[in-house]
């Protein structure tokens, strides 16, 4: 486990920071130094929307060695409100509750834990949007 590698990726993993091309407006996640659409090098950091909708999902039952503790877990292909697509675990739900189009929101969770003495990697995961009904007298 490389701490510097994880540390470099903090903006991307904690806050969903991507790149926006100042020339053509295209948005990318993870960040890119060169816009593949227009070739521009004029890229700026942009925090992506933390909301999106589920396009497709799967349940990982045979997991990579470093994720085995969490299995089975759901991985979704998610389209953010900005139009950017990301892959993420979808948590706090049963696969039976999921269907394409479902609204999801990003949260911060443990990604990997490197033994009892190593660092804890945090990063974004998604969950179904928490909804509530306003009670009488509330503005909602």
């Amino acid at each position, binding site marked *: 486990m490389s701490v510097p590698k994880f540390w470099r990726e903090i903006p*991307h*993993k904690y806050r969903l920071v991507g790149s926006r091309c100042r020339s053509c407006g295209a948005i990318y*996640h993870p960040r890119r130094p060169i816009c*593949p659409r227009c070739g521009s090098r004029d890229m700026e950091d942009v925090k992506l929307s933390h909301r999106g909708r589920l396009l497709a999902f*799967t349940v*990982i039952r045979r997991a990579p*060695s470093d994720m085995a503790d*969490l299995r089975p877990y759901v*991985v979704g292909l998610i389209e953010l409100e900005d139009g950017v697509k990301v*892959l993420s675990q979808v948590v706090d739900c049963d696969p039976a509750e999921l269907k394409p189009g479902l609204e999801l929101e990003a949260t911060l969770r443990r990604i990997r834990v490197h033994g009892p003495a190593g660092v804890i990697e945090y990063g974004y995961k998604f969950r179904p949007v928490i909804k509530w009904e306003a009670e009488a007298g509330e503005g909602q």
Partner: protein
Amino acid sequence: MKPIAAILGVGCTKVGEHWERSLLDLAIEACEKALEDAGNPPVRALYVGNAASELMNEQGNISALLADALALDGVKAVEVRAGDASGSLAIHQACLDASFSRGQEGAILVCGVEKMTDVMAPEVARIQMLFEDSRSTFHSGVTIYGLCALLTSLYMSTYGVSYEDIVLLAVNDHKNAANNPYAQYPFPITVETVLSSPLVADPIRLFDTAGIGDGAAAIVLKGPEGARSSSDTPVAVLASEVATDKVNICEREDLLALRSLRLAAGKALGRAGVGLDRLSFIELHNTTSVIGILSLEALGLAEPGKGVDLLKEGAVAIGGRWPVNTMGGLKGRGHPWGATGVYQVVEAVWQLRGEAGKNQVDGAEIGLTSNMCGLGSISCVHVLARWEVMA
């Protein structure tokens, strides 16, 4: 129709769990078989395709190691790495070498090798994801079969196709593997076998996935000139082309289009000067069935969403219009990553020399092999032909 190289000999090990044998043991067996098949010509260069020897076998720099082990004293040795496309890319580099060094004495040996059982399955799953863009995939915990599952779901919902129909490709592979003595899974299965096997990544089931196996395959090639005098049965390499796509599948405009394969195949068929109608058989890359079906569509054999029709109509069976994975493909023969691209060419050579036994495609003249890394971040296509076809 002008060849870029001539294949003089081929050889391979059986794909499987070779507990007693090392990476090097397997590579040596394949190389010696290929050299013997080629009439033991002097070798001037060795190309090795391998995906993950450092991570799985605690050994790097394996081209020099293999040259040394084969007693190819002082020979040029090059290692080629591109995940599970390593084997075909090693052949591609060897073809470039052959055309660049025309007139040089000696043949070029290409070996694809992978020794996977030195690590356990969850570690294989982790290592396989190192060939994707780790920033976009790694922390989601998605596996290669998870990515295939997402594509399978999208394919099913976009085109209204059932999983039962998709896995017909796995059934096809196993049927062909049953007659391949080198196959890892040489037995037939049914759609029911797939559907009753454990879920790996919903909806993908175990019998829809290429297994974990050790294997090595090798070919001997040289420049096209004088091929006839070097061998009684040379096979012509008409084209060897490579193309790439967005590594992060999330960024692909159409997730169901294997763009790198479409580009590489277009270039290869153009270079070879042959149309799809001339192909006698196709060796496809099918980590899971959906990748094979998307490959059929990327090659232009079927419209998007219609790839399964070729399976249902029997067009991909031996005796059909475009026999696919005639010796078992990734599913039946097995998928030792860096060796797979070389196995495909070895099997194509058997077909073109008329040595494919019970699976011989009648009158096979021109074959196409397609090998890719992961979900097509890089694709490599070869078009091969019987030497006589060019006359």
